[in-house]
């Protein structure tokens, strides 16, 4: 990522932090609507997962500027996802819905912000997939 992209993602994350719980719920709603087949991978009551998801986003975004911390966090997360048989196709499916949920919650959202999030998500997903294989 470029420093500019990191700044855009960090600023956007700060704007949505107060609404992260809602972003998380919105994201899962979008994901399950588009991909009902992944619903069984989550608990019937998904509220706990929503809380964890919001916390993860916050922590990961905060770690981006420090690669070692970022790598450490994504490694744990990636291995955890691997135990749930999360495949590349799932990572692909998530991307658009996450960005849409963030866009809906971020009053300062624009094209450069979306592009920056997109790169950040790719970095995160690839890191997690690498960890899953190691």
């Amino acid at each position, binding site marked *: 990522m470029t*420093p500019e992209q990191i700044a855009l993602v960090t600023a956007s994350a700060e704007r949505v932090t107060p609404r992260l719980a809602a972003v998380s719920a919105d994201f899962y709603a979008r994901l399950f609507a588009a991909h009902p087949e992944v619903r069984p991978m989550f608990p019937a009551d998904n509220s706990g997962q929503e809380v964890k998801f919001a916390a993860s986003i916050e922590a990961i975004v905060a770690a981006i500027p420090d690669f070692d911390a970022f790598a450490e966090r994504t490694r744990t997360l990636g291995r955890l996802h691997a135990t749930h048989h999360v495949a590349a196709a799932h990572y692909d499916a998530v991307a658009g819905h996450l960005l849409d949920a963030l866009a809906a919650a971020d009053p300062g959202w624009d094209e450069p912000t979306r592009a920056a999030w997109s790169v950040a998500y790719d970095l995160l997903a690839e890191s997690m997939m690498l960890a899953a294989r190691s």
Partner: protein
Amino acid sequence: MATATVLEWPLVGRTRELERVVASLAEPQVRVVLLAGEPGTGKSRLAGEVLAAAELDGYPIASVTATASAATVPLSALGALLPSTPDDPQQLLEVAVARAREVGDGARIVVHVDDIDLLDAVSCAVLARLWQDDLVVVVATQRTGTRTPDVVAAEQRAGGLLRVDLSELPRTSVATLLHHVLRGPVSAAAEHALWTASGGNPLFLRELVTGAVSTGRLAAVDGVWLLDGPLDVSGGLAGLLTERLGTLEGSARDLVDLLSLCQPLGADELAELVPFEVLERLEAEGVVTVVADRRRQQVSLAHPLYAQVVRDALPRLRARRLLLDQVARCEERGARRREDALRVAVWRLDATGTADVELLLRGARLARAAHDYAQVERLAAAALMLEPQTEASVLLGEAVYEQGRFAEAAEVLATATEQLTDLTSLDAARLAVIHGIVLFFGLGQPDAALDRLGRTADLLDDTQGEQRRVVDSQRALLLTQSGRSRDALELLPDRPPEAADIHAVYDRAQAWALHRRGRPDEARAVALRAWERQTGPDAVEGVLHPAGDLMVAALASLELGEPVRARELAAQGRDVAIVQGVGYQAAWLAWTVATLDLVMGYAEDAASAFRELVATAGRDGFGAIENLAALGLVECSALTGDVESARSWMARAESLPAPPAAFAQHATMARVWLAVAEGDTRAAAALATEHGRDLAQRGEWREAAVLLDEAVMFSDRVAAETLLGFVESLTGPVSQARAARARALLSGSAADLLAAAEAFAAIDFVHSAATLAARAAQVLRADGDPRAAAAAEARARAWADASPGLQVDGLGSVVGAALLTPREREIATLAARGRTSKEVAADLVLSVRTVDNHLANVYAKLGIGGRADLAEALGIAEDAVVPAPRPGRTA
């Protein structure tokens, strides 16, 4: 390289492909995974990750690296899979199968093959056998634009190939990769420059970053990677590599140069040459990789492109010295393993253009076993340059012939003949065999070929039984092809030669002779046994390609009333010959398939196959086959009533070299059908009868029967009498049906017609059956027995309806059409071609009312609604000059 910068390059942006390929390892229908892409897109890397995942999942694994250099010597790349292989090509597959079974222990071994396009044909054949037996699944890489090996292409046709195309990485993946490798953010300018320069090619990106970091031009300032000035990529990836590897000095330089010529080399071998620290540093810098295989550590350059770039820049004399030094070191250590011996041969060949004669011959024999004739040619030619050697000449002559360069092959063999010291040796006999084949089939000089063999035979005395059996087997084969099968059977030795490969010639001669002498059952049994001997688990390689056995088996099957089986056999032979790149045999078998299609009534399929053959055989210089294909097109055109095309194909055929005399009946048959299309059935019958009688006199029973039966269909009584003179003594239901047809013609009785109809129906020649039954119905009606006539007609209709698969226009009307009176047929034909009733009336000097009455009768008999359906019902093209003849042929 100023500093040793250790950067880790994770596999980014390829997880989807990786998951797909790993999943496919558990899919039994996937036998080969082909990772295709431009150099540097990460094919080998992906394959390596697949292998690592496979190993984790408990699969046995192995790696094979094909290189341009290893391709010179068959099997030298397969060391990982076949630590020891027999020199005897016949045992090769067995040993490979047994070994893979042992290593795999019930699981498929996952075999990584790098650059499969460079793998020699013998290795390809071994791998193909292993994957066909579900003993391995191959994960191969192939650079865009290189030739896909035939065995892989064949697997693709069979549905066992998973192809994964790797393209350049998208920009996001490049950004992610940079972030991972550099472990931090990269300035927008640097990222843009690296993305633009690399175009998303991971290897290019890697070279750019490695170079820029080692020179300090890409450096981290306050945690952000910045690029100092623009990147120079004017020389492209290759230029970049040359520049980077060009800075190596001393023993590192020697090592890289040597690897570019001889890789992979064992780490222990290299230890004598360079200090261990140098090897270690080169590995750390990503210049070389060290892979542990079962027995030792193998060192190669980190990317195939490195080897190419280094080799290209290497002065010729330096390359020669490095190779010869390597040969000396290897020989000093004793070159114990067979693999070593082969590698030494390759290096010597690369260095000096030559190698040990025995090694070269051994390689040539192996290559021949895999029908890799281009390779046989190289190795045998190299052996011949060292010393005149009959075996090498025979191999070379055969290889050049099999590649369709007939005159050149004849020259090689003529020279070898002059250089013979012992004219009665077994080698001399074998030379005569190949020489005979080349002269006869290649150059179309049957007399010269028989002379050549006869001269050798004349020199032999009674003590040289084996030599005689070898030579006479070949003479017998050529006699069958000259239309002298009686002489062939007489000359054929009492038992086959002991030389296993000439056994195939003996079998082929016997099969052809039996077929042509009207004994298809025995002919097919001999041919299929020969085929199995050459292709089964205990395969013995013949001097003839075994696909030719399937040609005889197919033609004999047709005589046995099994056209479907016949076509299957011919198609099988064709496909084998295509896969093995034996174009000449493939063309013969393709012709056989088309001919069978024509006989079975698939005129359109036959025509398109013949057209393709005319083009390809013409291109490849197989004039005789081009001729036969053109004759096939004469028949196809005649069948559809296209006289113009038929005539022009006939002119084309006449301008081409004649096929062997044994195929002369095809020219006559084409003339017969052209005459039919021109409306002159009398001339057609006369042509068929004349040639048929001539063939009968020479005892070529099968061909005689085909032509005479054709004439019988045109009601030629002389033909029927001649045919009955011999056909009943032949074997096979087709001959018996032909006899019945001839008897029916001579007696004209409804009972005989129905008997003949039944005989043809029994072998599914429903056209003939329906036509004969319809004629019986006519006779019965004329005899005043309408009830029996109706029954016969019902039978005829049932046979005609029983063949919905036949793609012949108007088939369903065979019965009705046979019931038309000559006048009705004449009027119907004119009407079908678009003439109005008034015009028809004028043409024939009849009243319009009479014409319309006749037409009404025709519609009723054909069971059609009116004029619009006439052409189709009669099976004629609207613009045809005469009614199309109906396929009623039995060959």
